[in-house]
């Protein structure tokens, strides 16, 4: 660009600038430290109003007391000194929302972190909003496919649902989330939900890895990542999920679908505990403040499925809770379990047995999702659930090595195979129609005579075979969302034919 041109531009801008002198309400910092500041003065300030400290640091008024205001500082509090002037802004904390945020990595204030330039949007949503009222809602009726066989079949999730993912550290909670986001690639563009991944108090290295994975698979195209890392001050961690929620609500209001992933709410609760204790709010159980339940309930209540009159959009919430040594009965887990519409429980024991994803099918539930399941999936899932329940009951006998009658033995063998079918590698979410087909084969006994070691190979080869030789069948299931008698017969024939060739190949191989 021409040097003179820049100067001309600058001149124009400066000429047009008028500095009005206005009277402003100000207060003074009385005490500051650890991310909170006590401010004297500023008598007309609102709750959760933004306050300006010096030049560029903003704070949030949380405690309004007789002479002072307790504020949390969103940014670097070390710049702030005692006696500094604090200005009110008459604005409730807002974040930018809209299409400009899709594909971006931002902090909880909506500022870009990915170096891809400004976020150009003129729309702002305040981070705290009352959840949609009953009249405007509709019951969940559209499935959200996660691409994970065990979830889509047994614990189905619907758009607008709140499903908790709970488990110990290093057990694959985030893996489920990443797979779910990647799986949305399979959705047609018009109905594909916008994914918003809110990372709260995670290691930056982990977040960087996740973002790289999104970019690699193309999932970043419809994903926003909100990052408040472990190094950010606690107030930023505290507002992160609300900011992410506001970004998602914008899409819901426009009649689109959005999915929010809060990774994780345990750390969110810790950050709120820190802020509350520093603001001298009275501590309660486990030193959490009295409104810790409301903290999460008002957040998760904002997930909704709107009815046709109100745009028909939806906001699905998949919060994550990290437990300590598998204890799901401690304070925060029980709170969030009671707020959500079900939970996906991951168990270390299963993980070490090699059952991955380590879903405990018995303890995991989805209270509303089955209403949204496709007919085809419903047909196979009923049997699957029964097979697994019976297997769980009998599994104890296997360890005794007790002599069992034929029927019982058959049930155990079936259960083993079905469990094997539900195993899935990370980063390979599966289209739901393929899930239906392979589960169908499992629960109808077509895998009973295949050795356990060959099940995975059979699954891969069979699905490959279907894709190459019978793509029409998969298309038919996908289109009709049902497994009609005709398709079922066709499928049975294909499975039987394929089994003979598969057995041949295996025999030859040995």
């Amino acid at each position: 660009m021409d040097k003179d041109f820049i100067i001309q531009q600058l001149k124009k801008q400066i000429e047009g600038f008028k500095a009005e002198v206005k009277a402003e309400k100000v207060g003074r910092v009385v005490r500051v430290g650890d991310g909170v500041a006590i401010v004297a003065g500023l008598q007309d300030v609102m709750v959760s109003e933004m306050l300006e400290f010096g030049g560029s640091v903003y704070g949030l008024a949380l405690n309004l007391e007789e002479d002072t205001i307790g504020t949390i500082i969103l940014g670097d509090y070390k710049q702030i000194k005692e006696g500094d002037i604090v200005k009110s802004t008459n604005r409730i904390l807002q974040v930018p929302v809209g299409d400009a945020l899709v594909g971006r990595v931002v902090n909880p204030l909506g500022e870009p972190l990915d170096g891809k330039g400004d976020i150009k949007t003129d729309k702002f949503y305040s981070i705290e909003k009352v959840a949609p009222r009953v009249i405007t809602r509709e019951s969940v009726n559209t499935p959200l496919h996660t691409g994970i066989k065990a979830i889509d079949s047994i614990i189905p999730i619907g758009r607008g649902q709140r499903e908790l993912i709970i488990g110990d550290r290093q057990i694959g909670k985030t893996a489920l989330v990443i797979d779910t986001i990647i799986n949305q690639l399979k959705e047609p563009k018009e109905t594909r939900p916008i994914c918003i991944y809110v990372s709260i108090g995670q290691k930056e290295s982990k977040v960087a890895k996740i973002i790289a994975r999104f970019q690699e698979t193309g999932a970043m195209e419809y994903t926003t990542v909100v990052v408040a890392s472990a190094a950010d001050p606690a107030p930023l961690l505290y507002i992160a999920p609300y900011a992410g929620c506001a970004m998602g609500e914008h899409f819901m209001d426009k009649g689109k679908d959005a999915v929010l992933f809060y990774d994780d709410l345990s750390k969110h609760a810790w950050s709120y505990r820190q802020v509350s204790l520093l603001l001298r709010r009275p501590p309660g159980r486990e030193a959490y403040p009295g409104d810790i339940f409301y903290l999460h309930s008002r957040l998760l209540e904002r997930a909704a499925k709107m009815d046709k009159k109100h745009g028909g959009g939806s906001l699905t919430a998949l919060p994550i809770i990290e437990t300590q040594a598998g204890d799901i009965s401690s304070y925060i887990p029980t709170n969030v379990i009671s707020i959500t519409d079900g939970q996906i429980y991951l168990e270390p024991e299963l993980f070490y047995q090699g059952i991955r994803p380590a879903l405990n099918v018995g303890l995991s539930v989805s209270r509303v999702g089955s209403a949204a399941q496709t007919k085809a999936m419903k047909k196979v899932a009923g049997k699957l659930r029964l097979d697994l329940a019976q297997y769980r009951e009998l599994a104890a006998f296997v360890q005794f090595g007790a002599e069992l009658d034929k029927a019982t033995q058959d049930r155990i063998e079936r259960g083993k195979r079905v469990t094997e079918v539900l195993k899935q590698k990370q980063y390979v979410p599966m289209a739901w129609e393929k899930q239906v087909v392979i589960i169908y084969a499992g629960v109808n006994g077509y895998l009973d005579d295949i050795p356990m070691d060959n099940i995975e190979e059979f699954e891969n080869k069979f699905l490959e075979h279907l894709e190459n030789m019978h793509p029409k069948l998969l298309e038919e299931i996908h289109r009709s969302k049902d497994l009609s008698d005709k398709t079922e017969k066709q499928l049975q024939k294909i499975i039987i034919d394929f089994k003979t060739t598969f057995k041949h190949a295996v025999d030859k191989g040995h």
Partner: protein
Amino acid sequence: MLYSPKQYAQALYDSLKDVKEGEIDLIFKNFYSILLRNNDLKLINKIIGKIEEIDKEERGVVEVEVTGAKEIDKDLVSKLRNLIGKKAEIKEKVDPGLIGGLKIQINDLLIDGSIKAKLNKLKRSLI
């Protein structure tokens, strides 16, 4: 029962309002013993500060702080005094960092007409 410094100050101020010559000592003595009993002697500095505030408020005195980049013109100060009308207690300060113009603070109200503030605003509008 816990009392805030403001409550102590208000109570002391009220009891000292119309009092006879000989009773002042007694009131202070009583006040001292109350503080001692409530273990609140550490609040004494805050209470004194609050009494000053209450006193100013009762007498209708407004605290005004005028900051300029250079020594402030005496004419300007008297003009300001007339403008505010009420009994204004004007404090003058010099802060070369303002570059030019004036900054006037009346209680919680700030009128910033300094060059520094204008430059800051310009900076924000440009970025």
